[in-house]
């Protein structure tokens, strides 16, 4: 899952029209790192920015069969802090505390996780 050609499932999102700013969510999901962050947040609701940056850099390396170095990770961390997490926060899916560099709460609407194709493992 999760390559650059990712297309969110429009029907999952349309169903939530009225409750969600669908255009904004589409734009968010079109951003690879924002999408990966959402998926990780879905599984790990209160990560630090550092933890997210580690995992996103690793995910990129895995996708591209390359090695992620600290130099690859750093711009991801900066973008998470200044752009991606505030953006997701503004949509109301998480509570991001820039003071402690951590996400303190995550509640991603089911329509969004459905649109990303994320399914919870059977209990």
């Amino acid at each position, binding site marked *: *899952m*999760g390559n650059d050609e990712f297309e969110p499932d429009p029907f999952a999102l349309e169903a939530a029209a009225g409750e969600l700013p669908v255009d904004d969510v589409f734009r968010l999901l079109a951003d690879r790192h924002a999408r990966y962050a959402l998926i990780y947040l879905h599984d790990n609701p209160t990560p630090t920015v550092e933890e997210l940056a580690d995992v996103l*850099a*690793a995910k990129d*390396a*895995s996708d591209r*069969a390359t*090695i992620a170095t600290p130099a690859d990770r750093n711009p991801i961390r900066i973008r998470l802090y200044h752009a991606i997490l505030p953006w997701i926060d503004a949509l109301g899916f998480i509570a991001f505390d820039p003071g402690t560099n951590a996400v303190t709460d995550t509640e991603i609407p089911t329509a969004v996780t459905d649109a990303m194709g*994320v399914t919870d493992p059977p209990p």
Partner: protein
Amino acid sequence: MNSLGTLIERIERQRKTLEVHTDDDAIVAELGRQFETRTVDVTHRSLGSLDDSGFVIVRSTDGEFRGALGIDQFRAILSPQIHPPWELADADYDRAELFDFLENTLFTTYDRRQMVATAREIEERAWRVGSGRLYTGFQRAAALAAQTAVYERLGSHGSLAVAVFLDDAWDRAPLDGMTVVSKPGSELGEFWFVAFDGGDTEMESCALLAEERRDGEFYGFWTYDPSMVDELVAYLETTYDVS
């Protein structure tokens, strides 16, 4: 450093963490086994929905991110039979970052065959560069005797300066193109090493240093770190009569 052993001790203190993100318990077990004898802590995190095959994150002693790569690729690197480290080093990756984890990481159970294969890679690198210093510790005269043809060729190649180190005396035919250093009863009997300073190309420098702790069982590391190679070369020159 004041002995060959202190360099190995320094590597021992650089404990690293390998954080394995996967939902496949067999992979966790496999990597745990592979690193149980090295100075590496293997930890496990569940992968969730983020990736299909998973990845590993390498951390330094203080938990800092040092590098990450997909598990499939990491396992490929770990198989020296498939990819000798030096061969991968010539690929497109950033060498220093890619091998920072595997190099400067202790191996504890190399046998003579693995040592010869690794030593050979360094000797071939010296041959390709054709200049610089190649210092090799053979432990015993008998081991050097088995390699004299190779080393006489290396010693007469380009401007390579070759020195060989032994614990016992060399009482066979004089060898062309190299300095033979003998110091009976010294550490030279216990350590197998090959150090090449890269000549004018620092990026080519590499070294292997291992202690024979049990008969035919070696404990040590290999490195591309030019400063570490320099330190080893300088130590050999100041401690033994290399000129």
